[in-house]
């Protein structure tokens, strides 16, 4: 038998209620591969509440806690305090929330958890909208994307506003570890989770989580789309460890974003100039990321302010 490139432990069970080809489902499976059995996962109202727990069943082989949509950060602070008060050793506390429950509704409790230095891992699986309730726009929906609340037709051209920069918000809190991961790169995903699991303090993951019905693509394209997102610079893979940036996938020149855009029905109305604008934005963000990596590469490379 060929050597497996990922741990063979499975703590996400089959029989769950995710759509065929669900990016968030694969994200949970990979996340739990990187964590031990003594894990508590706190899930707010989101797709994953429905996926995991049609009563009396559970799709998770670890302790699971359901919490209100705005409370993931607070709930993991409380779970950590409870585990410590009970003297439980080696418990990993994890919040697993969607982009709406993180970047919009749960932002205050995420900020509080990071500011309190809660020893926990917060995971935002980003399917770029309120998908569980039927594809409404969120702060994390990209500019121009069609959703049911940002329609396309007449003068309406999808979401007018830009995607909220959750990594920027989180990094401003100086977490001990933060990283972007993408299920299309499972080895990188699990390696980062294992690395985060060894650390103490607030840790954060931004997960690229394609949604076939919400983004309008065929369910077999989830991985292919993930690859395009990273290799075009739409969703670069990097980690920030104690403030030091490291880009974990550099494939030479970025692919044009057009291929990623054209693969999805939610961008069907994009014109050449829409794509050119996105290309410019993605290029600028990629350059900024490489600059951050250079500037934080080694302690002596950090420029000392002149007085």
């Amino acid at each position, binding site marked *: 038998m060929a050597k497996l490139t990922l741990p063979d432990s499975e703590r996400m069970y*089959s029989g769950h209620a995710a759509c065929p080809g669900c990016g968030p489902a*694969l994200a949970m499976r990979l996340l739990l591969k990187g964590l031990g059995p003594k894990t508590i996962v706190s899930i707010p109202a989101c797709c994953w509440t429905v996926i995991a727990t049609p009563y009396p069943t*559970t799709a998770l082989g670890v302790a699971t806690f359901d919490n209100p949509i705005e409370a993931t950060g607070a709930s993991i602070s409380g779970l950590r305090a409870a585990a410590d008060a009970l003297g439980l050793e080696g418990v990993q506390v994890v919040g697993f929330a969607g982009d709406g429950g993180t970047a919009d509704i749960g932002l205050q409790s995420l900020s509080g958890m990071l500011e309190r230095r809660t020893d926990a891992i917060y995971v935002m699986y980003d399917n770029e909208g309120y998908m569980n309730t039927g594809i409404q726009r969120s702060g994390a929906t990209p500019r121009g994307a069609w959703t049911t609340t940002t329609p396309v037709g007449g003068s309406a051209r999808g979401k007018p506003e830009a995607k909220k920069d959750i990594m920027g918000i989180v990094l401003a809190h100086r977490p001990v570890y933060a990283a972007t991961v993408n299920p299309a790169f499972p080895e990188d995903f699990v390696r980062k989770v294992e690395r985060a699991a060894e650390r103490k303090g607030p840790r954060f993951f931004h997960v690229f989580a394609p949604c076939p019905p919400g983004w309008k693509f065929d369910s*077999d394209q989830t991985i*292919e789309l993930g690859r395009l997102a990273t290799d075009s610079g739409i969703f670069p893979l990097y980690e920030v460890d104690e403030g030091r940036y490291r880009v974990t996938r550099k494939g030479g020149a970025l692919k044009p974003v057009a291929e990623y855009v054209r693969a999805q029905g939610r961008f069907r109305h994009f014109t050449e100039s829409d794509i050119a604008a996105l290309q410019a934005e993605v290029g600028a963000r990629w350059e900024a990321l490489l600059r951050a990596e250079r500037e934080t590469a080694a302690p002596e490379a950090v420029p000392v302010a002149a007085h």
Partner: protein
Amino acid sequence: MDRTERTMIEIRFHGRGGQGAVVASELLAQAAFLDGKESQSFPFFGVERRGAPVTAFARIDDRPIRLRTSIDAPGVVVVLDPGLLRTTPVTEGIRSGGLLLVNTAADPASLPAPAGVRRAAVDATRIAVAHGLGSVTTPIVNTAVLGALAAATGVVGRTALEAAVDRFVPAFHAENRAAVDDGFAAVRFAPADAPAPAPVVPVPAALPPWPEGPVASIPSRALRTAAWRTLTPVVHTERCTRCNFCWKFCPDDAIGFDAEGYPVIRLDYCKGCGICATECPPKTIEMVAVAEAPA
């Protein structure tokens, strides 16, 4: 007292998430209302994920409808996806003398149903594709099926259906009206004396005893998601390099290995997303229609 028997018509729709079964029940109720009838429609509140079996209900009567329950003894059962006949007991509870209407190109005499149930078929998929409704892989068949339902039962008039399409369907009005017309003209019936194959028997849920208290503790492996599948992966191991790409990318953990390390699809759980076939480097996995897959 059974006042429901005389004038009320109860219709149950079976489809898959994304096919338009819920909208079909709503359109039917709206059309009946435009016809001057009392009507109601509502879906079964469950997991309406794409591909998952979905149930919706409609009642039509000349008198006010006071029932608010789901429909256990339908007079008419409408099936939008013929694959459901193999996995879901769609005719469960259907009244004697009732009608089963299925979207299929097959001979209506081949449709499984209890004795005493009339059977009809309409190739709504072909009609939907011909009018550009939905895509070729996921055609939206509901308006063509409703046209056939109107022809087969007379519960609602074709004109009212077309008016409902114009008022309540957001787009493609002309195409949907044409689909209603084509469905109306294309309904086929099984001869009354043609014997019907037996319908699938509902498999009792194999859940272990429920846990005490509010903690969900039964692994979801007790739930079989095979009924969601419209395409089945078939592994041709002669070209397989045992690279395990299929295994690592499966969102349903529905791929295991045999003793020699070749992938084995766990068909109780596979939802047929097709990721394994697309990601397989030597292309040894083929997605085939469920009806043509080896048992």
